[in-house]
C-alpha cells in the first residue's frame, strides 16, 4: 500500500457535510419560478387535458391550505395549540400529488400533510385535535382513505407497503401513496418498505418531500446521493420533481400512480422543495440556517408561480382572486372558532379504545379512577 492511498483512506474532515455531487440531478419542471410553462416530452401528457378551471382549483387549494396553515401557526402562538407543524412552502408538492389521487387510493401521511388532507376532503379542523391535545389522531382513516398522522419518523411507509400488498392480493387497481421527508429517508423502516414493496411488486408510490431540513439537520446529513437515486438500488424507478411546481408534482404523481395501477410496482418521487418556516413551532430556524437560503427559495414560491401563469394566460381574472381572498378569510375564521370551541375530552377517554375486546386491568383501573373521582364531596371530580 502506498503512502498516498493510506492518506486517501483517511476520513475527510468535511465528510458528512459535503454538498451533493456536482452533477446536477434532473428536475422535472413544467412551470418556471417566473410562471412560464415549459415543455416536457415525458410528463406533459399527464396534464395535457387540464382545464383553466382545474388550474384555478389547484391555485385555490394552495391558497386555502396556506391560509389554514397560517391560522394554525397563529393559534399555536396564542396558546390554543400545543404545537404546530407548518407546511409553508410545500403547498405545491402536496396539492399536486394530492389531486393526482383517485378516491379509492389510500394515503399514509406524516404529520405535515395538511394539503393532502385537504385534497382528501378531511375537514381541516379535524387535523388540529392532536395538536390541541384533545386526541391522538381523531379521524376515521377509512372515511376519506387518509390514514392518521404518524409521528414516529418513517413508520407509515411500511403501513403503506402492507396496505398496498393487500390491494394487490384483493386484485384491486387502487394505488397507495406514502409521504415522508428527507430525514425519514435515513430510517431503516423506509429502506425496509422499499425492499418489501419491490419484492412483492406492491402498488405504492413513495412521495418524499425533500424540504432540505430535518429539524436542524440538512439533507447532506441524511444522504450522499440525491434521494430519488436510492430507488435504483431497490429495483424501481425514482424521479426528482420540482416540488414547488404544482403542475409537475401533479404530472409526475399521476405517472407514478398509473405505474402502480398497471402492476408495475413501486415508484419513488422526490419532490424537491423547501420548508419555509420552522420544523414545528418548537424550533427556531434562525439558529441553524441562513436567511439568504430562505430568501432564495421565496423566489420559487409555489403559489406566486401559478398566479403568474394564470394571469399571463388569462385563465383567472381579478374577480377570482378577490373572491378567493374572501373565502380564505372565512376559512381562517372558521378554523379559529372551531379550535376555540373544541371541548376537552371526557376524562374517561383515557381508558377508551385501549383495547377493542376489553382488558381486565383497564377495567379495574377505570373503576379505581371512577371511585377516586367520586370521592370528591363537592362532586367536582365526577
Amino acid at each position, binding site marked *: 500500500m502506498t503512502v498516498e492511498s493510506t492518506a486517501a483512506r483517511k476520513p475527510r474532515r468535511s465528510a458528512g457535510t459535503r454538498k451533493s455531487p456536482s452533477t446536477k440531478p434532473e428536475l422535472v419542471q413544467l412551470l418556471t419560478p417566473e410562471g412560464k410553462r415549459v415543455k416536457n416530452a415525458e410528463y406533459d401528457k399527464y396534464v395535457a387535458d387540464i382545464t383553466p378551471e382545474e388550474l384555478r382549483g389547484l391555485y385555490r387549494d394552495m391558497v386555502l391550505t396556506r391560509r389554514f396553515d397560517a391560522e394554525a401557526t397563529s393559534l399555536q402562538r396564542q396558546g390554543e395549540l400545543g404545537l404546530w407543524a407548518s407546511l409553508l412552502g410545500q403547498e405545491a408538492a402536496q396539492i399536486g400529488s394530492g389531486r393526482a389521487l383517485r378516491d379509492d387510493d389510500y394515503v399514509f401521511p406524516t404529520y405535515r400533510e395538511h394539503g393532502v388532507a385537504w385534497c382528501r376532503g378531511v375537514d381541516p379542523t379535524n387535523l388540529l385535535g392532536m395538536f390541541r391535545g384533545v*386526541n391522538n389522531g381523531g379521524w*376515521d382513516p377509512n372515511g376519506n382513505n387518509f390514514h392518521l398522522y404518524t409521528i414516529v419518523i418513517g413508520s407509515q411507509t411500511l403501513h403503506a407497503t402492507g396496505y398496498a400488498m*393487500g390491494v394487490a392480493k384483493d386484485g384491486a387497481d387502487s394505488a397507495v401513496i406514502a409521504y415522508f421527508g428527507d430525514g425519514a429517508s435515513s430510517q431503516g423502516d423506509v429502506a*425496509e418498505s422499499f425492499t*418489501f414493496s419491490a*419484492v412483492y411488486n406492491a402498488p405504492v408510490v413513495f412521495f418524499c418531500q425533500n424540504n432540505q431540513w430535518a429539524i436542524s439537520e440538512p439533507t447532506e446529513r441524511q444522504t450522499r446521493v440525491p434521494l430519488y437515486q436510492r430507488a435504483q438500488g431497490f429495483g424501481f424507478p425514482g424521479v426528482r420533481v420540482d416540488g414547488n411546481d404544482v403542475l409537475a408534482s401533479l404530472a409526475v404523481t399521476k405517472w407514478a400512480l398509473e405505474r402502480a395501477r398497471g402492476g408495475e410496482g413501486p415508484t419513488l418521487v422526490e419532490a424537491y422543495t423547501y420548508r419555509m418556516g420552522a420544523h414545528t413551532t418548537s424550533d427556531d430556524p434562525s439558529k441553524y440556517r441562513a436567511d439568504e437560503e430562505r430568501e432564495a427559495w421565496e423566489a420559487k414560491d409555489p403559489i406566486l408561480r401559478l398566479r403568474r401563469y394564470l394571469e399571463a394566460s388569462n385563465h383567472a381574472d381579478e374577480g377570482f382572486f378577490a373572491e378567493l381572498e374572501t373565502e380564505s378569510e372565512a376559512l381562517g375564521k372558521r378554523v379559529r372558532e372551531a379550535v376555540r370551541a373544541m371541548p376537552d375530552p371526557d376524562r374517561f377517554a383515557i381508558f377508551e379504545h385501549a383495547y377493542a375486546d376489553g382488558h*381486565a386491568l383497564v377495567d379495574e383501573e377505570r373503576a379505581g379512577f371512577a371511585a377516586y373521582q367520586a370521592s370528591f364531596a363537592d362532586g367536582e371530580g365526577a
Partner: protein
Amino acid sequence: MAETVTFKNMALAKAINESLRRALDADPKVLVMGEDVGKLGGVFRVTDGLQKDFGESRVVDTPLAESGIVGTAIGLALRGYRPVVEIQFDGFVFPAYDQIVTQLAKMHARSLGKVKMPVVVRIPYGGGIGAVEHHSESPESLFAHVAGLKVVSPSNASDAYWMMQQAIQSDDPVIFFEPKRRYWDKGDVNTEAIPGPLHKAQVVREGTDLTLVAYGPMVKLCQEVANAAAEEGRSLEVVDLRSISPLDFDAIQASVEKTRRLVVVHEAPVFFGSGAEIAARITERCFYHLEAPVLRVGGYHAPYPPARLEDEYLPGLDRVLDAVDRSLAY
C-alpha cells in the same frame, strides 16, 4: 359431552400448525407471514406444509426484516387482513419492537376505535434448548408493559391449539409467546371443544399448602415440583396463567386465599419481571391471608448465558423447591 369427540395426541408445535391450518381454511383474510415460514415450514417446522396447501399468497415468505414484517402486517390489517406473523426467535423481535409498541399497540386508540388491529405476532421464546445467544430470551414483560397489546403463552398442546384460534379471532394485537422447549411435548387436543376464555388462568393441579404460579415453559416444571413436594408430604397448587396481559389476578387470589403462600416462577429475569407485578398486586389483595412474602424464582439480571450455563440460569426443580421451603419456613 358429545359421543363423537375425538382427542388427537400431538406435539405442541403440531397443535399450532393444525390451528393455523384451521384458521387459514376458515377465513380467506388470515395470512401467515415470516422468514422461512413457507417452503421450509419455519425453523421449528411450525408452519410446515401450510404454503403447499394454501399457496404463496396466503403463507408468505418475507425478506429478513422484522420491522418490515410487523409494519407491513399493520398495513395489511388496515386493508382488512388478519396477519399471523412469525418472529423467528425471541431475541430477534427488537428490530420490530418500535412497530409493535408505537404503531401496532396504539392504532386502535389513536383512531378512537375506528381501526382494528387483528395481528398475531408469534414468538418462539425461552431457553433450555442449548441455543446460541439471542435464541433463548423471555421478553414477555417488555410487551405486557405496553397498553394495547395482549400477551399470552400456552403451556401445552391443547391450549396452543385453542389459544391460537382465539388470538387470530381477537381484534386486538396479540403477542403469542410459544415455549420452544415444549414444542415437542405431546398432549391431547380436542379440536371440537369449546375453549375457555383466552384471558383466564387455570388451576392445573389442586393443592392446599402453597401456590405455584407459572406460564409457558415453566408450567411443566412446576408440575414436576409439585410431584416432588408431594413425596415430602406437601400439597402444592399449580396455576397456569396462560395470559400475561391481561393477567387473571382473581384466579391467583382465589388460590392464595386457600393456600396462603405464593411462589411465582418464570424464565425471564426476576428484576422488573411479571413476578414483580404479581407479587405486588397479590400482596395488596391478600395482605391478611399471606403467611409468607411472595417469592419469585427466575432468571438473573444478566445477559442470557452461553448454553453450557443455562441450567444454572434457568429455574430448575431444586431452585423452585428451595423457594417452596423458604416460603413454608415463615
